């Protein structure tokens, strides 16, 4: 009986994690470049009381054994890197990637981070930075007195400076791709860092090696689908409920057992 309590408890536990993941997805429904997560579960080990296929008297085999499971556990929380919708913003420093690439960001620690959030800003020196002030890599500095910035699909950035006739090329954006983006580690602030599971980044010009092209004046929205999350939330809540019922029933049965001797 105690086992059933624990078994149903593991069921409630996984549903709780499921709801945690869903709640985080819903909270980020308007976060630029956000990628939703999915909790995935697996069954725990089984206690085998009698093995099927075991030989018994007369050379016969046991057709069905006895296996009793111990519940469920979390297998993985997987990031789903499907593309989000593009929103037109007409802001010349807003960039979206059409493809699988990531922008490269330099963290203050010296590490490199990767993001799909292309809402870049300028700092006091004219350098392109994220909303948190982390510089884009390779670094691009916009000269003073710039009136217009043009970013092409292949990543080349040009500026029109006041008093000059022609466009001045000020840098090129490079994108990184990963073999297994689902293996990237999310560190918050819309950033990811590489892990041994994601593989090393392959950098390249936008449009080469499947990195995707850059789109100026657009932002990639979150890829969270609210309807899907709501459906998952209802399923998760009901599953939680049904497991709590199992615990209640186990409790009732224990109570009955305790009341046998009055």
């Amino acid at each position, binding site marked *: 009986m105690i086992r059933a309590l624990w078994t149903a408890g593991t069921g409630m536990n996984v549903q709780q994690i499921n709801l945690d993941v869903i709640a985080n997805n819903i909270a980020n429904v308007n976060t630029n470049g956000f990628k939703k997560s999915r909790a995935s579960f697996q069954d725990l080990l089984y206690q085998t009381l009698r093995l099927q296929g075991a030989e018994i008297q007369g050379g016969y085999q046991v057709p069905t054994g006895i296996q*009793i499971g111990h519940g469920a556990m979390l297998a993985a929380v997987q990031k789903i890197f499907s593309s989000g919708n593009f929103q037109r913003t007409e802001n010349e420093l807003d960039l979206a990637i059409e493809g699988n690439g990531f922008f490269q960001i330099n963290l203050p620690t010296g590490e490199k981070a990767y993001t799909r959030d292309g809402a870049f800003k300028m700092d006091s020196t004219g350098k392109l930075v994220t909303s948190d002030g982390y510089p884009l890599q390779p670094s691009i500095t916009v000269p003073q007195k710039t009136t217009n910035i043009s970013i092409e699909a292949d990543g080349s950035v040009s500026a029109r400076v006041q008093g000059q006739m022609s466009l001045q090329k000020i840098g090129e954006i490079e994108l990184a791709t990963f073999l297994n983006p689902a*293996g990237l580690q999310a560190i918050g602030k819309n950033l990811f860092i590489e892990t041994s599971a994601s593989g090393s980044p392959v950098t390249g010009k936008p449009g080469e090696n499947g990195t995707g092209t850059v789109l100026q004046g657009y932002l990639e929205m979150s890829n969270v689908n609210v309807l899907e999350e709501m459906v998952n939330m209802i399923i998760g809540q009901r599953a939680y409920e049904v497991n709590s019922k199992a615990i209640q029933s186990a409790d009732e049965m224990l109570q009955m057992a305790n009341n046998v001797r009055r």
Partner: protein
Amino acid sequence: MQFAYKICMLPLHLNLLSGKFIAEKRFNILSNNLANISTPGFKATRFTYTVQKENDTTPSIADIKTYIDFERGAIVSTGNVLDLAIEGDGFFVIQTKEGTRYTRNGQFTIDKDKRLVTLTGDPVLGRGGEITIDGKEIYIENDGSISVDKNIVDSLRIVNFENQGALEYAGKNLFMNSSEKNPEHTPEKYTIKQGCYEASNVNVIMEMVNLTNVVRAYETYTKISQYFDELMSKLLDTVKL
């Protein structure tokens, strides 16, 4: 006293005990099914009853045996490239450290060595062994052949068994084949669906009905126990041993 014990208590109590014991086992099985409502590719445990009766004077003792219900679960569409579902019979073949395992859970990913693996990192086997995926565009045909950047690299190995009853749970959404007399073969008809996975086949309504049933059965055994307790105490009072 000895006489009374022999006449009533032993058979009745043995019956009651086996009944209570079964109710607890059933309860454990049901709660495991309920805990795995959201486990992809999970197959529910079912049970049958057996009765052992050696001769007419000894009480019959009931017990249960478990088996795996391989009924198909619902196919959930996700649009993820590496979510696969098998429509029809068959299992994906997984190479774990403990040996070959089988699963209906088609949620896969790619590891750092570019192999197709389960979410816990065990490689999925193709017809030519481990499947290496090195490229961007992954497309999986209905027959299980995998094309990466328009080149066919391998085909998923899908197997089935003559006797699915010889499969047993190995945890981690996997099954293992417990009998050497049950060779695997390629099923004749199956379709691999990319962008979908198979959900758990646990039927909540059925499990809840069973659960209510078990609790009430347990209550009955308890009531009979109590009644028998009263009976015995009356008997002892009357006889004054």
